[in-house]
């Protein structure tokens, strides 16, 4: 059982950081909605607040790692141009996906949207973590600011979801492959 280095990077980017962000984001949304509602009677301890603060900062860091690995490590492999006359396009995912009418939309609609919409996620996640760091429990007394924080958390989730969906579909139709082969398990005997 083996995989290529590029495939491993793609997995770390999408199934690792990307999926982790989506999970973390849904948790943050619930916590911000439930605990910091003006009508919430639940008590907020300093420990709870410190934890949520660290959680949101970690979430923003994960968002940045996800988009930066995507844009500067995996995307260059995806958009690599094949030399003229290349028949086997398997090492050139963008060209491969564009070579069939049935899959070209995954690039012209999917990747074109994904590569830009993904940046909303770290911007929104950074804003949410900084606002929480600054205001914390005071958000309960600032319902409009809390509403903005919740809205941006939701937008970061949606944009990460769009990017994740198209990333997964693109990798299904034209996987990013190449580089060093990594042996995960010994070869099975026939």
């Amino acid at each position, binding site marked *: 059982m083996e995989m290529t280095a590029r495939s491993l990077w793609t997995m770390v980017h999408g199934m690792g950081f990307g999926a982790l962000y989506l999970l973390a984001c849904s948790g943050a949304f619930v916590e911000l909605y439930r605990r910091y509602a003006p009508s919430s009677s639940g*008590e*907020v*301890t*300093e*420990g709870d*607040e410190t934890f949520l603060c660290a959680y949101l900062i970690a979430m923003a860091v994960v968002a940045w790692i996800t*988009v930066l690995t995507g*844009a*500067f490590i995996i*995307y*260059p492999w995806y*958009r690599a141009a094949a030399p003229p006359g290349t028949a086997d396009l398997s090492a050139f995912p963008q060209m491969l996906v564009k070579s069939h009418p049935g899959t070209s939309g995954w690039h*012209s*609609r999917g990747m*074109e*949207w994904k*590569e*830009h*919409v993904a*940046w*909303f996620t770290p*911007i*929104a996640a*950074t*804003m949410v973590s*900084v*606002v929480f760091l*600054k*205001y*914390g*429990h*005071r958000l*309960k*007394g*600032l319902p*409009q*600011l809390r*509403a*903005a*924080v919740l*809205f*941006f958390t939701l*937008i970061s989730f949606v*944009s990460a979801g769009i990017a994740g969906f198209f990333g997964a579909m693109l990798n299904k139709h034209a996987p990013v492959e190449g580089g060093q082969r990594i042996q995960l398990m010994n070869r099975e005997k026939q």
Partner: protein
Amino acid sequence: MTPQRPLIPPSTDRMPNGSGAAAVLAAGIGSFMVGAFAIFADKVEGLRKLMNIYKPTGPLSGVAAAAILTWLIIWASLEMRWRNQDVALARINTLAFVLLGLSLLLTFPPVVDLL
């Protein structure tokens, strides 16, 4: 028996909302800038070349860098201006949400094709 952790008292220590408003509006503008720079880089040949600051990633590298730089500069300037005051957050939220909506539209390829 575990000792009780300190509870945070109800929000009597109110802070001005200016800092939060600066972060909200800057994030809206930053997201909008991603869409705006992406469109300009797509439609204007000269700008596309200018945005190609890291060749393997192509114009996306410049689009992202320019949008993030703009976002951070606007955030810092709004923060300096509003940090000690209360601002009309409802209006700022509306503006930020509209900018976010526009940025989602501006990055959506079928809409970009119409422009």
